[in-house]
């Protein structure tokens, strides 16, 4: 058995510096990344400079994944290709700083790490270009802002602007009270149970997605756990005089 992803404490490490030193489960680096980092090291010490070859091989292997991420945050082909180019530029920036950081602490698969990093980079690019997204219900507003940026010459239809709904002041107060009681009841739950509810009801993840994320064996376990947690929550709320979700 090779040097697996199994966590192991160092026998005589004076100062921990890698994932293995800290006892984290360590994954082996993909060969293309190892080759790239070796080429980088060789280049730094005046050895044979095949860093471009290794970089091209690394890109060739990861292009589909990076384009997949770029597409997920873009609305058209040009945006996708801009984002893809930006991600490549940033991965290579500062002498491959990001990839070196991953290699020093490879706590996850490279592909998962690349998804997270590439998505963050793509979002950074869009924030620079279109400004930060503020507010929760501003999908229509974002679309309008994007059109303002992209199509300055085009006339905008005021019907595209988001409508603001307001309710009565008394209703708002009662809703705020209800939310406050619910929040304090939620704080009585275990963090993992609270996370389950948030993922299911705030973020609308499917039971299967939640099972994968929180390490439950199947979606049925998610449903069972959520039902048990909701029953507990209901009891806590009833104890505080809340019988109905309607304010």
């Amino acid at each position, binding site marked *: *058995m*090779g*040097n*697996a*992803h*199994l*966590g192991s404490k160092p026998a005589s490490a004076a100062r921990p510096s890698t994932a293995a030193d800290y*006892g*984290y*489960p360590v*994954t*082996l680096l*993909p060969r293309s990344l190892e080759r790239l980092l070796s080429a980088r090291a060789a280049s730094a010490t005046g050895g044979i400079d095949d860093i471009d070859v290794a970089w091209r091989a690394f890109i*060739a*292997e*990861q*292009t*589909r*994944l990076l384009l*997949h*991420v770029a597409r*997920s945050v873009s609305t058209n082909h040009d945006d996708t290709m801009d984002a893809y180019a930006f991600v490549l530029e940033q991965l290579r920036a500062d002498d491959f700083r990001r990839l070196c*950081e*991953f290699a020093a*602490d490879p*706590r*996850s*698969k*490279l*592909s*998962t*790490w690349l*998804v*997270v*990093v590439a*998505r*963050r980079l793509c979002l950074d690019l869009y924030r620079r270009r279109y400004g930060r997204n503020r507010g929760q219900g501003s999908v229509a507003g974002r679309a309008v802002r994007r059109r303002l940026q992209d199509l300055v010459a085009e006339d905008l239809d005021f019907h595209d602007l988001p409508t603001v709904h307001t309710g009565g002041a008394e209703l708002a107060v009662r809703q705020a009270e209800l939310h406050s009681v619910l929040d304090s009841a939620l704080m009585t739950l275990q*963090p*993992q149970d*609270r*996370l389950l509810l*948030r*993922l299911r009801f*705030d*973020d609308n*993840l499917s039971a299967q*997605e939640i*099972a*994968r*994320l*929180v*390490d*439950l*064996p*199947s979606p049925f*376990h*998610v449903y*069972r*756990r959520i039902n*048990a947690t909701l029953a507990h929550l209901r009891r806590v709320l009833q104890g505080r005089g809340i019988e109905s979700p309607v304010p």
Partner: protein
Amino acid sequence: MVTPDEHLSATEIAAFIDRTLTPRDRARAELHLSGCGRCRAEVAACARLAASAPTPQRRRPTWPILGVAAALMVAVVLRSASKPGDGQSSQARTSADGRANMFTVFPQRDADIRRGELRFVWRRDDRSTGYRIIVADETGAPVWTEDKGDTSASPPAAIPFKTGVRYYWRVEALHLDGSVAQSLETPFRIRPE
């Protein structure tokens, strides 16, 4: 290291999705995520992207290699077909992206077993660099998890398995290319000594 107030780093989010954080860091990450919508949204989006991501582009195998691989596959199929009952104790999960299977061997599905005899055995995965065994109770809460280099494991005596309770176990294998093979979860019960 994750603290409840700090947003999760890219490394931590990736490790959370891959379930490779240490139990202590995972608990901290869960505490943070339960109160941080921004990090939760990022975890959810990245988990979806990672699940639907295409596999890395690798050099295509040459025809002679494909021929050898096909012959090996035929041999494996013929071998498993010639062993009646062999598949009864084994359960495998094949993911949509074609990851390899993992097979549990013992305890078998719905086995009633004494605590003193509890030992988990699974089939070897040739591509594996290590295994992780996970035992959970009926609510899915992990009861015992351990990383192993070989294909069997015995839970320490301190692990509180209760008589009559149904437990589920499964095993995962990590491959050199970073992919993970998993078995289906196999239910079993502890019977009185």
